[in-house]
């Protein structure tokens, strides 16, 4: 047993973290939030350039997306790199996969055509029809952007008028269910982490009754609860990514565990940290709502915590 990262994995994390520190500070996220699409496709391409579309396994994908979550990066990384690329790979859709890996194509899955995450910035939309994975170019679709709570990860309603079969839908769905679910979980871990870090900074600096508010246990214990929730989610996300890469018999269970825990952990941390900020936490100009909204948009993606709990009950044979 050795549950630590390799030097290569540490280097990958550092490369993504450096890129995001350089290109995706919170002011930039806010600028993109106010933009027409809410997505920074240049930053997305930079992620592709550091190899984020061609990673050796689910664990490396998790490392990249955890960092993206920690930066609340407004890119289609989760939808395209975390969900669609593994689906294309599993389906054997080599041509589109190559285009996605080169950064020319930004594919997203249209699993629920009424709620297609990042559907408005995708170049290709992937549909499951019968046993086939159908790819349609954006120009072959009617795409209606939707108003979303999370302005840094939006959705669209999509109807396709053309497109063609590119591979096996069963394999694609299986990849979504496993790798995709765990990818979303990792992003949520990152969101919970940044929320916690902001909460700690505030609790150390903000004074009331003549002392930093982190002195008070009612405040500090909320932050400890957030820390525990995020660390539990992190553990289950790492385990699930490893289980997928090692193809263990409990990989499906591990994926659902990761998602249920990450959804709850990120939302809990974001809520606690907003509370710890008091009134400022309710303002548009403070960043707390970005974390809370991203936590919810991740929590709703590929199955809610409650849906995954029901799946866990099935899988453990209750």
């Amino acid at each position, binding site marked *: *047993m*050795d*549950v*630590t*990262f*390799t030097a290569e*994995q540490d280097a990958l994390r550092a490369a993504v973290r450096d890129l995001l520190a350089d290109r995706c500070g919170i002011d930039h996220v806010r600028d993109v939030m106010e933009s027409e699409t809410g997505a920074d496709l240049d930053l997305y391409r930079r992620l592709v350039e550091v190899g984020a579309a061609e990673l050796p396994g689910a*664990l490396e994908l998790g490392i990249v997306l955890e960092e993206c979550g920690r930066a609340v990066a407004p890119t289609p990384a989760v939808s395209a790199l975390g969900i669609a690329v593994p689906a294309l790979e599993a389906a054997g859709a080599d041509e589109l996969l190559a285009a996605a890996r080169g950064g020319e194509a930004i594919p997203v899955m249209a699993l629920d055509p009424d709620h297609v995450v990042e559907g408005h910035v995708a170049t290709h939309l992937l549909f499951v029809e019968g046993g086939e994975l159908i790819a349609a170019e954006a120009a072959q679709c009617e795409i209606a952007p939707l108003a979303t709570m999370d302005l840094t990860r939006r959705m669209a309603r999509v109807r396709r008028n053309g497109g063609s079969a590119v591979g096996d839908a069963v394999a694609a769905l299986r990849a979504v269910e496993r790798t995709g679910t765990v990818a979303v979980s990792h992003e949520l871990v990152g969101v919970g982490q940044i929320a916690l870090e902001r909460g*700690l900074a505030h*609790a*150390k600096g903000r004074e009331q009754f003549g*002392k*930093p508010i*982190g*002195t*008070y*246990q009612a405040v*500090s*214990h909320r*932050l*400890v*609860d957030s*820390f*525990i929730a995020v*660390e*539990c*989610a992190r*553990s*289950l996300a*790492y*385990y699930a990514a*490893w*289980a997928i890469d*090692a193809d263990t018999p409990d990989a499906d269970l591990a994926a659902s*565990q990761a998602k*249920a*825990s990450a959804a709850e952990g990120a939302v809990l941390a974001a809520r606690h940290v907003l509370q710890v900020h008091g009134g400022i936490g309710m303002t548009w100009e403070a960043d707390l709502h970005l974390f809370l909204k991203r936590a919810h948009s991740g929590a709703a993606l590929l199955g809610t915590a*409650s849906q*995954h*709990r*029901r799946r*866990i*009950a099935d899988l*453990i*044979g*209750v």
Partner: protein
Amino acid sequence: MDFRDSPQEAEFRGEVRAWLREHLPAGWLDSPDPRPTDPKEGEKLRRWWQRELFEGGWAGLAWPKEYGGRGATLVEQVIFNEEAARARAPEPINIIGLYMAGPTIIHWGTEEQKRRYLQPLLSGEEIWCQGFSEPGAGSDLAAVRTRAVREGDHYIVNGQKVWTSYGHLARWCILVTRTDPDAAQHAGLTYLLADMEDPGVTVRPLVQITGDPEFNEVFFDDARVPAENILGQEGDGWKVAMTTLMHERGTMSFGLQVMSRVTLDQLTELVRKLGRDQDPAVRETLAGFQLDVEALRVTNMRALSKLMKGAPGPEGSMSKLVWERVQQRMGEYAIELLGADGQLTEDGLGDGRWQYLYLRGRGHSIEAGTTEILKNIIAERVLGLPRSR
């Protein structure tokens, strides 16, 4: 990253399993709950089991060979604890000795002390208890008032300790005393090894809410402790006590997650017996327990990996908090599911097992650091928040 046993670890695990199978009483592994409920029976069994462990060379597994241990790695110790918990093996009777007094003596003791105390500690011939808490010093350990005054080559001890598990069985007590009432709170403490057979020591059992007499009050009235029975130097008591607590909260916790796994399996079985396994609310609740039990297992593995590489991370500090919460909630949920039957301790489902689990569970968030104290420790030492006092 690999969560599986290495070939050597797998071999060691196999060895442990084979030994347990061979040495546990006949039928033990097939019984749904083999541990006796009668405290006297339990004590007898646990004394016997400690002896078995000692003779098999499993007591003090990770201790240095020169002191009767095996010099096993930390991961081997964890594997042993996991397998023992999975087999629901009895707890060795000298749990305070094995996990707290022993490691502290190995760390702080003189060669003479190690030779005197460690062997009978491992064999269970001499049982140990812990004299830390007092009526006026619970979470605030540095407030202890039990006085030790040096007179010639003895310390004369006066005061009272409380919540002393195994005090009624123990020969020795790891005792935190105040030797210098004028020094700063943490500086005036001294750590002694006190003989419980001294005529100045009186033990009064306290019956717990489970009905078991697991812990005691211990009174010291001019009890005499030879000066050579000091661990560390006079005034080192706080530092030595921290070594003890580090061990209490450290290595011991690695077996706890398996206890939770066993409880969850039993709870799942109960749900089936009650015909509630298709109830969506019940299923979601059990899935929630599964999340906590698995998070605990994996978090422990992360912590252990970092420890083995010499870089302890923050993960270890939260294990006990996650464990006590899930263990308590499972007990609470069983009582809730059982309804009126949950009030019956003999004729109900489980013969009182669930009531015991529930009641004993209330203590999990109090013993070895209350929830609140452990959260303070994480807030201050892991998260870097300002001290709350």
